[in-house]
């Protein structure tokens, strides 16, 4: 399968390990830059301009600042859990990239249970934020931790229902295989497979909303609702502890958007049949990420019960309907 890289297995894995770490680190740093630049443009200002050309070295300066700060563990906190939480937010995010097919041959470990693995590790992130909030012994952080759990439980359900719908259509959990099925022009992409299920675009919208909620992004940023909860679960974190939560957020956005690309937009498949797969994968990925940033700087935050109502009263019935519809179609067509 991995014909592009003729390396012995240990070296190949090492290369992928370094590559994944670099990819996640680079993305976390430069998505912050992109976010700040994007926010600047949406708000008719320039964003970072001082450090480097167009502020391109700003993430480096930020990283140095965060790394040089003292790690404060406030008195009264559960020191072990307090230190563990930032690691727990980052490590599973890295694991998710193991099965992610960046192109035809570029995947660290093509697993036939890839999709299941991504979701399994993707869910740990919630526990990490809850742990951080709980260990902080801060009232704002505890409120935030409680919110994160109920929010993620509520949104995991419609997301998985949507994914089950897709699985019924694709018949495999191998991410690379899912992409391969969508080859041959953009009308074969899952989002446009209206013959399998006429509600496919709706399915994508449900997935997208759930992804925003799962990654705690605006307008669903209940965990870090800074005008209500100061900094939510991260209130007591400083320096790189906070930095890791921050990186974890962006890493999760990258995972969510990669997954959306793979499941709905044909992954590394070219829509017109030219240029390498990696280029198309990254292009689709960053377009989706840009839309996530766009949403954040456009909408105000939802109310918490509004968020839960949206999930339980609209998204779950809708995704259940889609599920039933596509199973009926699969059965009788």
């Amino acid at each position, binding site marked *: 399968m991995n014909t592009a890289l003729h390396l012995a297995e240990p070296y190949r894995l090492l290369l992928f390990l370094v590559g994944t770490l670099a990819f996640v680190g680079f993305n976390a740093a430069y998505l912050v830059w992109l976010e700040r630049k994007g*926010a600047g443009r*949406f*708000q*008719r*200002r320039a964003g970072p301009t001082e450090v480097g050309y167009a502020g391109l070295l700003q993430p480096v300066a930020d990283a140095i600042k965060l790394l040089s700060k003292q790690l404060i563990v406030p008195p009264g906190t559960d020191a072990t859990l307090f230190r563990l939480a930032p690691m727990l937010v980052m490590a599973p995010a890295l694991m998710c990239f193991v099965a992610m097919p960046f192109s035809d041959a570029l995947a660290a470990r093509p697993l036939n249970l890839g999709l299941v693995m991504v979701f399994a590790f993707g869910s740990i992130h919630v526990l990490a934020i809850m742990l951080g909030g709980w260990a902080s012994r801060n*009232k*704002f952080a505890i*409120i935030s931790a*409680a919110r994160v759990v109920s929010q993620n439980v509520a949104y995991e359900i419609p997301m998985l229902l949507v994914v089950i719908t897709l699985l019924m259509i694709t018949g495999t959990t191998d991410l690379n295989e899912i992409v391969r099925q969508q080859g041959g022009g953009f009308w074969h992409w899952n989002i446009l497979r209206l013959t399998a299920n006429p509600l496919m675009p709706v399915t994508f919208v449900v997935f997208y909303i759930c992804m925003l909620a799962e990654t705690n992004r*605006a*307008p669903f*940023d209940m965990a870090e*609702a*800074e*005008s*209500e909860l*100061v900094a939510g679960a991260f209130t007591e974190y400083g320096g790189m502890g906070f930095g890791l939560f921050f990186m974890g957020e962006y890493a999760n956005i990258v995972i969510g958007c990669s997954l959306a690309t793979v499941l709905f937009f044909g992954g590394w498949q070219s829509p017109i049949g030219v240029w390498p797969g990696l280029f198309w994968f990254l292009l689709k990925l960053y377009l989706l990420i840009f839309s996530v940033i766009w949403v954040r*700087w*456009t*909408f*105000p*935050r*939802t*109310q*918490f*019960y*509004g968020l839960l109502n949206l999930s339980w009263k609209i998204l779950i019935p809708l995704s259940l309907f889609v599920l039933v519809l596509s199973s009926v179609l699969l059965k009788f067509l």
Partner: protein
Amino acid sequence: MMPQTERSAADGPQETFVLNLGPQHPATHGVLRVKLTMDGEYITRAEPVPGYIHRMHEKMGENRTWAQFLPNTSRIDYLSAMTYTHAYVAAVERAARIEVPLRAEYIRVITSELNRLSSHLVWFGAFLLDLGGFTPLLYAFDDREKILDLLEGLTGSRLTYCYYRIGGVCNDVDEAFVQGTRDFVAQMRPRFGMYRDLVTDNVILRKRLEGIGPISAELCRRYGATGPVIRGAGVPYDVRKVEPYSVYGQFDFEIPVFPEGDCMARYRVRMEEMAQSLRIIEQAIDRLPAGPVMAPSVPRVLKPPPGDCCFAVEAARGRFAVRIVSDGKEIPYRVKLRTPSFSNLSLFEEASRGMLLPDALALMGSLDLVIPDIDR
């Protein structure tokens, strides 16, 4: 949508905790502390603790001359400094029986209304920030910047103006200001359409504001709440209409009133009010009379005759009244300041009972509190 919080004693002991909102908190926009007794995310009791930036303005009024107190007034509510200075100078003028030239009154109306606009624009941005929307703030401040530039050209300061003087205003408007104001009015009008399309009609915003934080007219009356808060509860109380001061009686404008009493009503009142301010400014600029801007016979050492005098204006946040007592000396005997934010905050405790924390913060944002205005 209102959550159920009234529980009977049969439910067993309730676990509540105290949450200190402030004095440093992003949503209080200043050093206000609110002691919240919370049941989960529901507020069972919210006790505002003002006084963190109490600066004794009233006491300071008692140990400086009538004119020397003038700069203090613009530092009480720093966002609508013009209207506050207006109330004080007008009160002294009333006490000392000084006649203000018509041109000065017109200039006062124009600058006060510009200041009201800039104050409401800050509120608009900050309120949306409270609700988690960052971008409107920058657009509002962009518009506000034009007002600040205009007022800076005229008065020399951008925020804490000391432009009105006892007997008039300190310098005349020039052609640049008049033209700049006309241009601003023309530029500002279409912006309201944009704000309506992008912000007011946003479904998330409407969900967050409609039906949230209802304040009845009765509650407003009990606590003495004024301004957009009482007009958002359906009471057409605006000092500019009910006891017209200066030359407000000569202009054609409406008092926007929304009867719902929720956060959305207060939001709409302020948005409408900005459009009405533009109308007033336009009319005042068109009809600006010629003449002096300072009364001819203001004594250098002011000694108003003994007596008691009160003057109220409609500031951006409600009724601001100055009551001065003179014993015939060059220093006031008493300066009493009735500030709108204090009364508007007072109803928060009763209005926020049983609300969720984010809703209560939306309610607080819709009251448009300026903390120095509460503490004085």
